[in-house]
């Protein structure tokens, strides 16, 4: 329960910090950190426009997308506190529930019969597919390292001892940040600020959403960021008391947000054609982690 509350709280200001960081690095003052959330609330109060081409799929898709993120958040533990949903192999559940959300957001986009939205849908499906093996190899490696297969048990029994394990922690954090960037369609892969539909990924998929649905999708994205931030934070909050854990959690989330902001300010987006290769290289990072784990376990003779 605690993890759910913390993540929802973080989601309120996470995107605000990202935007604020971007503003500051580009020499502007920028809006307050709760501005994105205020935008979402404003959207929730607005009326909606639906395309005549769309069917009920378009109407249920945002809700299912949002529900899938909530469900995925329920799986994530916080320090020594289990998530609400926890069982052996729950990270598979986590990934697959998110995939269901993605399934619906994709068919929601295809439902409009637009000539652009399918493009974004196609890219989203391709990129998330390519990112999937990296996540599974990462979690599989930790399962090997700790001997457990649920998020909660993996994180509680994860302890950093040797130099290699620190290296692994850093690598894992990198992979998770990158996966978070891909899943949320952020900078190196997708530029949320672009104004050309042809080069968009996520933005073009939600072109036709408006009102409450758009608010749900945007809030869902914020929650997703907080969720990945929580995953990263869990690497560090293992065995501390609850207050310190909460503090570490918030610090990690804020650092993560600032990092996203800096990354978006100082890097250009990749060429669309090279994204696939880039995303797939993440898998090789994961394999590096796996080999590192094998090294620690002494399985290499």
């Amino acid at each position: 329960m605690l993890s759910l509350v913390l993540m929802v709280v973080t989601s309120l200001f996470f995107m605000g910090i990202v935007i604020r960081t971007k503003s500051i690095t580009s020499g502007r003052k920028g809006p307050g950190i709760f501005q994105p959330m205020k935008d979402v609330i404003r959207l929730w109060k607005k009326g909606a426009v639906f395309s005549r081409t769309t069917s009920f799929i378009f109407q249920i898709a945002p809700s299912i997308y949002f529900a899938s993120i909530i469900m995925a958040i329920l799986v994530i533990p916080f320090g020594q506190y289990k998530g609400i949903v926890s069982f052996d192999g729950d990270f598979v559940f986590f990934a697959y529930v998110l995939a269901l959300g993605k399934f619906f957001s994709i068919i929601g986009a295809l439902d409009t019969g637009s000539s652009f939205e399918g493009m974004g849908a196609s890219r989203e499906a391709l990129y998330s597919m390519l990112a999937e093996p990296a996540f599974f190899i990462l979690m599989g490696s930790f399962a090997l390292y700790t001997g457990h297969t649920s998020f909660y048990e993996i994180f509680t029994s994860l302890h950093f001892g040797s130099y290699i394990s620190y290296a692994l922690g850093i690598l894992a954090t990198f992979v998770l940040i990158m996966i978070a960037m891909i899943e949320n369609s952020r900078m190196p892969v997708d530029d949320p600020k672009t104004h050309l539909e042809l080069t968009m990924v996520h933005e073009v998929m939600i072109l036709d959403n408006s009102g409450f649905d758009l608010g749900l999708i945007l809030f869902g994205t914020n929650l997703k960021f907080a969720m990945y931030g929580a995953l990263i934070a869990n690497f560090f909050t293992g065995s501390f008391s609850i207050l310190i854990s909460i503090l570490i959690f918030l610090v990690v989330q804020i650092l993560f947000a600032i990092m996203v902001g800096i990354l978006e300010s100082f890097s250009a987006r990749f060429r669309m054609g090279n994204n696939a290769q880039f995303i797939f290289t993440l898998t090789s990072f994961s394999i590096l982690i796996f080999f590192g784990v094998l090294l620690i376990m002494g399985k290499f003779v």
Partner: protein
Amino acid sequence: MDNFWLIMSSAIIVGVGIFCIPMLPAKIKVFTSFLLVLLVAITTSIPAVNALFGTPVEFFLPGSVLFGEIPLRIDALSAWFILIINLTCLNGAFYGIGYMKTYNAQKANLSLHWSLFLIFQVSMLWVCMLQHSLAFLIAWEMMSLSSLFLVIFEHNKKDTLKAGINYMVQMHLGVAFLTVGFIWVYFAQGSFNFIAISDYFGTNFNAWLFLVFFVGFGIKAGFVPLHSWLPHAHPAAPSHISGVMSGVIVKLGIYGIIRVALMLQSELLLIGESILIISIITGIFGILNASVHRDFKKMLAYCTIENIGIIGAGIGLFLIGAGFNNTMLMVIGLSSALLHTLNHSLFKSLLFFAVGSVYQQTHSRDMEKLGGLIRQMPQTAILFLIGAIAIGGLPPLNGFISEILIYNGFLNGIHTIGLTHSTLMILSLASLAFIGGLSLLTFTKMFGTVFLGNPRQLLKNTPTEVSLWMRAPQYFIVAIMFSIGFFPQFYFSVTLQVIQSMMPISNLIDLEIFTPMITLMENVGRYSILFLVLLIGIFLLRNYFVKLQPITQNNTWGCGYVAPNISMQYTGKSYSKSLSKLLSFIVKENKKYMEIETSDIFPESRKHTSHYADFFEDNIFEQATKRLLRGLNYFQFIQNGKVQMYVVYGIFFILLVFFGTLFNLI
């Protein structure tokens, strides 16, 4: 009634059916045949259920001198498959009532079709029961032949016949391998009883004989590179037949492999690793091909290949577990294979039925000609969507249950065994995730292109929702799928019992250690329900808030362009284009078109065709058959069409036999 008579009556019903069905008028014909299918299902399911919960059925049929006594045995494994066959055939026949209505005019053809359907069902059932090599082969052959004739129902179409011949040839290649395998055992052990195979494995090198059986059964199952009949036969067959074929006939290949695998005594690791690797390749290859094609039945056929890969991975895991004496791995592997067999037979037949409804209404299998069908056929669209979610292995449906089981198997395998196997397991884990991602792409493409957006072409008649006869079996399947998704612990414990009873008595499994697994399944089911509740809750909340504000209807936002037309819609092909470009070394696109020359001044109509080639079929089998044909062409003079020459050949043969026996040469 006695089990013996119950089983025998299934054969009698077929006999009655073959005589009755042709006599009846078209309308009653289909109902009668459905009733007969139901009767067969009941008579064979009763002993199967008995076998599943305790008492295996076993008796001997009197055979001839050649055959000896024919053992007929229903153990838990057979029972599991018998129940799946009956369920799928029942649904198929029920769906067929509605689907075949349009063909009511072709009376003779229809009689043949329904009689064959009965033979088909019973031969499949008997394949699962007979444990005598020769009798097994006869049932196996009857199954192949009857399904062949079911496939070529629309025999006036060239493509259908071609697919049928392709199917026939490949099935007989499979039978040839099986025959070799059985004869091999017979020469070594002197018995046609299946127990002889296990005896053979006890004393000899296991891998070669297993390879022969694996090829024989693998052709039926569709393991890469033995899969090439599937993408031809499934699109050609009527949809209820595709559903049943993909749902169960392919699974009988799996049945054979599991049956033989359970008898293996040594070389388990080697065989297990090989099966796992082949299965993973099968999975990736199948779904990758599925994602690029535009014929939706062909896509589903390739998707069947993918699912066979997942089932095979379970079998591989089982054998690896057996090799390491790791009970956990063994049981998880086999139970995931069995559960996925059930799951796949459910959602694949559902999908085939749903696209069958689409085909019946639109007469097109080309998804690029369709679109927006959700408005005319909303129920079919929902049914297809449910099937698509299930086949992608997404919660809260049944596909997720078997996938999470197999993931748990891989995760268990990672930390219980050594370096090589850890690496193998983690790569399989990643590949399975990759397959999951690909199937998401495939099915969003299929659903999005066929059912969503605007119609891409004007159809001759406006499609309407299909009759209740065709929808009812699909709803029935969906109900079972949800029951597996929400209460997986029940189905899982049944598979545990199957596995328990299939293990040799010396090697009984302690079911106690699986209590955590059952709780796990229970949890998964509970969380699936929770997810569904959450989902509905959020949707209701959203509806409440949306209704508070004004809602307007408008055109799709054209990004500033004010005159968009239907042909500007995103197509299925472009949806998967970036993927196929990325992996073009596996899914090669063959294009045919004429470049516009600089000297061409006046426009004229041009043609552009492109299709995706099957890597194995094009690069290996086509090449091999081409070479073979070139060589065999030299012997064409033998078959010259002159009757006189054929008579001479006959005389030569008789003389040869005569002198051969005369001089004791033969």
